[in-house]
């Protein structure tokens, strides 16, 4: 069960009450406006109480909220989207959606990891976890983008690459490795949007770019809290502890210099006003696109190299190797 869904229940009830009173106010002779004002103040207080100080684990759940806008919701707001299917080798992976569209009149190629809205769709889309063929489809689209000098805009929302037998047999490592290398040298601008969950190499496989935008309540980490806990302590049930330690919030990512811009979300999260959240992200994309397309390709690639070259965590020591 999503802890945010539980947490926001009283707020939703209160808001339903306010809506009811507002309707009554319009149809009845009695004036409820004083009551409505009081309840609205209470709702505001409640909102701050609930969302003002979320724990890392609650933020993970906010990023996974069942009504949070998904990649296709953003893509649908682009002009003239046409989906392009398949990796030309094995199958079409529904966890990865690709195609072309227009953003503010500019022709772009689009990549997105798509989760499902319900169990049935989640099974179809493997919970947004792509198989190798999904990454290879994305690679095919990126090569098209390079060939035709169209920018790439990607939407990241995945717990990670699909961990399974078929995925391993078909070379999950190679597919991800190839994409990361391809993006490092792709001779066209790449804009990355982290809209929900960014987990591990499975996210990075469409996540290396010139400018990385992150929604305020999205998360981005070396691995989703569950596999991270499984790796660290052989216990996926310790995910809450992993979430607390991984530093996976947008503020953390901005501080590390990995994310270039944080797009604020409506109070209580993107799912409370999806339209606003989507518009804000696409607006940031439009602005970025205008800026990036002004740069020469070589300039773009040099800056891209530098952006990632400087991300590290090392220092020099006077210690010598113990064994010498």
């Amino acid at each position: 069960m999503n802890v945010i869904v539980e947490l926001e229940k009283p707020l939703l009830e209160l808001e339903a009450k306010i809506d009811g009173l507002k309707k009554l106010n319009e149809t009845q002779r009695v004036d409820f406006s004083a009551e409505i004002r009081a309840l609205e103040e209470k709702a505001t207080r409640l909102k701050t109480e609930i969302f003002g100080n979320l724990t890392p684990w609650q933020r993970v759940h906010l990023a996974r909220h069942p009504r949070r806008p998904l990649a296709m919701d953003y893509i649908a707001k682009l002009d003239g989207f046409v989906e392009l299917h398949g990796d030309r080798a094995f199958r079409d992976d529904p966890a990865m959606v690709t195609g072309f569209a227009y953003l503010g009149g500019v022709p772009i190629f689009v990549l997105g990891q798509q989760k499902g809205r319900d169990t049935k769709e989640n099974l179809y889309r493997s919970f947004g976890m792509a198989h190798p063929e999904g990454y290879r489809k994305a690679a095919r689209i990126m090569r098209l983008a390079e060939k035709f000098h169209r920018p790439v805009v990607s939407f990241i929302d995945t717990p990670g690459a699909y961990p399974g037998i078929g995925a391993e047999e078909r070379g999950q490592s190679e597919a991800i490795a190839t994409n990361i290398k391809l993006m490092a040298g792709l001779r066209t601008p790449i804009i990355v949007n982290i809209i929900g969950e960014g987990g591990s190499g499975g996210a990075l496989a469409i996540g290396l770019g010139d400018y990385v935008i992150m929604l305020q309540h999205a998360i981005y980490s070396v691995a989703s809290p569950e596999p991270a806990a499984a790796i660290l302590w052989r216990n996926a049930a310790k995910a809450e502890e992993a979430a607390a330690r991984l530093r996976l919030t947008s503020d953390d990512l901005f501080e590390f210099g990995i994310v270039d811009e944080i797009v604020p979300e409506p109070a209580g999260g993107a799912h409370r006003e999806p339209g606003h959240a989507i518009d804000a992200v696409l607006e940031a994309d439009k602005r970025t696109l205008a800026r990036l397309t002004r740069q020469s390709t070589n300039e773009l690639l040099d800056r891209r190299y530098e952006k990632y070259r400087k991300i590290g965590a090392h220092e020099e020591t006077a210690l010598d190797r113990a064994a010498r």
Partner: protein
Amino acid sequence: MRRRGARPQPSDDKLWEICPSCHERLYIKDLDQQLRVCSKCGHHLRLPALDRIALLADGDFHEIASNLVTADPLRWTDRMPYLKKAEGDRAKSGLLEAVVVGFCTVESIPIGLGVMDFFFRGGTMGGVVGEKVTLLIEECARRKVPCVIVTSSGGARMEEGVIALMQLAKTSAAVERFGALGLPLISVLTDPTTGGVSASFGFQADVIIAESGAAIGFAGRRVIDQTIRQKLPEGFQTAEFLLEHGQVDMVVRRAEMKSALASVLRFFTARGTASAKTATAGSKAAGA
């Protein structure tokens, strides 16, 4: 570089080691002589980085970037501080970090060589490993020599969080630039190679050699088990499994590793006729 010295030794007076595959008791002196390959079942036990270097390099190995240690970007603590764990790994492995990088010759061919060490934090890649591998590749480009990376790693280092993840991006960008120069990158995947290391330079190489019996994959068995609860087939994610599924170029036993690597290096560094010209033209077209 001495062959011994960095061996992980739980106790100095230990004479025997148990083969993890057939559980035979092996006399350590014999085991070392057999390159840590079990004399009974042929299982390849994990090899420390310095032993691997001694196995592959002709003689001297000139290490670079030897003094880098982690800056602990997340200030990580669980049952003990990450820095404390790293100290323990130093004692256990005799190394300052999970990879050793430098320059040497292999059958007289000059190369840059990086070797990961599983006995330091499971060979995981954090900021230091990412930086050292990147420096190695950049220096290989400057010296115009092939780059060989021997992997042995559980993947990205969780204790360095998303900084560790970004090392996939950093090293991949270096590999990408290196490739544009027409120089070969060769990876030798040894037990185990998973996660962020297989999903970056491990599988970005021009030629991928896997050591016999090595466990290689993206998701570790534990993650697959806990996520999808599928029963895993016999031999799943072994070097031989990968060869069968078209994921690696060859599977080589440890005893033949040096000569196999040298024959690949010799081919890729041979002065060809038409092929050399094509390679040069190709790299220009790529806009290097």
